[in-house]
């Protein structure tokens, strides 16, 4: 076990919030076709409120801080926020579309010693990228920013969200990342919009195509292990928990709402009204999330994939129950291994459903 994994396990066991993802705004200069956010400002936290929240997170033991949005650079005070976070000695990662980052901004980020920066790139073809972001010349601006940041010696990674409009382009984006000398990550997850509109789920990569992605050695290097049939679960597996959501990780929205994860819209409290540590330690919702072991899962506890599935409790929650299956992950497990899941078998399906009726819960907006 690496030192980092040991520390992660220690924080998990102690219930310390080691990592937090904070969206500082939902406003954005792009209008990506797959985005689930409502980009209007319904009363974002002020600079002082965000700084106060960061002070509380530092006191609570948070080490890894991801700042994102929306587009975080839409906030005029974003550098002030990063500066404050660094003064509090967080390991800061920024997620952005980077179109507002020029040479000067890249230099400033370097001077602030952020850990890394993740940038969304949808295609190596400018027309395809710009059609997804709906911002003309966004590809050109984003790639220039990648170069500025790389030239500053910052660790840059390109995040490639895969969906139907750019399905064929992951090779091209991966090659582009290699040419630019930056990392590449692929994500096929599309979630419903915050207003409950599920139409964007039609953009999800069809299951059959996922199989091709998972069995591609250029994208998944450890093929044999990754695509191996699941091993029978041990007692230890059944005592295990889904992921770090609510255990050593949480998400804070621009309105101060605290959730177990970015993809787990269960409101647990608000840092404008409560102390962060009170929410973390006392929220009944977080306690419930933390209590769920694999053996408690209604369908998945009897599934052969239970020990290796990427089952997301947040997506399961959006599907109706945080103890239930997440169809998107059933689909991934099936196409990864070829072995049907318990969720498929109980429905008499030989192939997984391609979409499930997910409901994205609107976060509780609080006026500033």
């Amino acid at each position, binding site marked *: 076990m690496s*030192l*980092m994994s040991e*520390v992660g396990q*220690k*924080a998990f066991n*102690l219930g*310390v919030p*080691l990592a937090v993802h904070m969206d500082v705004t939902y406003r954005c200069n792009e209008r990506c076709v797959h985005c689930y956010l409502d980009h209007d400002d319904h009363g974002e936290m002020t600079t002082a409120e965000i700084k106060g929240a960061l002070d509380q997170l*530092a006191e609570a*033991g*948070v*080490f890894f801080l991801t700042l994102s949005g929306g587009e975080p650079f839409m906030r005029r005070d974003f550098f002030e926020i990063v500066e404050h976070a*660094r003064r509090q*000695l*967080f*390991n*800061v990662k920024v997620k952005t579309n980077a179109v507002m980052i020029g040479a000067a901004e890249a230099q400033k980020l370097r001077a602030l*010693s*952020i*850990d890394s920066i993740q940038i969304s790139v949808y295609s190596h073809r400018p027309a395809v990228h710009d059609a997804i972001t709906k911002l003309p010349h966004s590809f050109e601006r984003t790639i220039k920013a990648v170069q500025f940041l790389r030239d500053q*010696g910052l*660790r840059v990674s390109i995040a490639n969200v895969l969906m139907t409009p750019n399905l064929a382009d992951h090779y091209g984006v991966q090659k582009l990342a290699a040419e630019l000398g930056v990392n590449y990550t692929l994500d096929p997850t599309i979630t419903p919009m915050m207003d409950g509109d599920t139409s964007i789920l039609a953009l999800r990569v069809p299951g059959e195509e996922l199989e091709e992605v998972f069995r591609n050695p250029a994208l998944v290097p450890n093929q044999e292990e990754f695509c191996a049939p699941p091993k029978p679960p041990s007692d230890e597996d059944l005592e295990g928990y889904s992921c770090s959501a609510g255990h050593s990780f949480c998400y804070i929205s621009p309105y101060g709402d605290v959730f177990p994860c970015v993809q787990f819209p269960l409101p647990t409290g608000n840092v404008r009204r409560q102390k962060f540590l009170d929410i973390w330690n006392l929220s009944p919702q977080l306690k419930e999330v933390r209590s769920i072991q694999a053996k408690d899962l209604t369908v998945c506890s009897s599934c052969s994939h239970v020990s290796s599935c990427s089952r997301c409790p947040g997506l399961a929650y959006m599907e109706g129950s945080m103890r239930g299956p997440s169809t998107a992950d059933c689909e991934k497990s099936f196409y990864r291994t070829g072995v049907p899941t318990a969720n498929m078998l109980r429905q008499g399906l030989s192939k997984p459903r391609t979409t499930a009726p997910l409901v994205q819960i609107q976060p509780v907006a609080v006026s500033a």
Partner: protein
Amino acid sequence: MSETYIVRSSAIAARLLAGEMMVMNSADSTFFTLNEVATAIWQAADGRTPLREIVREQVCEQFDIDPEQAQADAEQFVADLSKHGILLVSDNPMSAESAR
């Protein structure tokens, strides 16, 4: 006898987890956890207090360690962390602001 002064680099991220300090250097992602004694030295590394004084007050008095051994261990610890750019070392006092 010349003094040694140590100051934490401003390029690092750090947080206490159950009595042990996690330290990460953003420049190369080197990651350390410091034990209680090392954490005490780390926390006292303000650039103004001589290392000998830190060892005497933060280590010997609080952890019941032989002073000579403590000084040798502290010097080794400081050398290791300075190699990774996590602690800066000088014969003269330094300010935290200059710790790049």
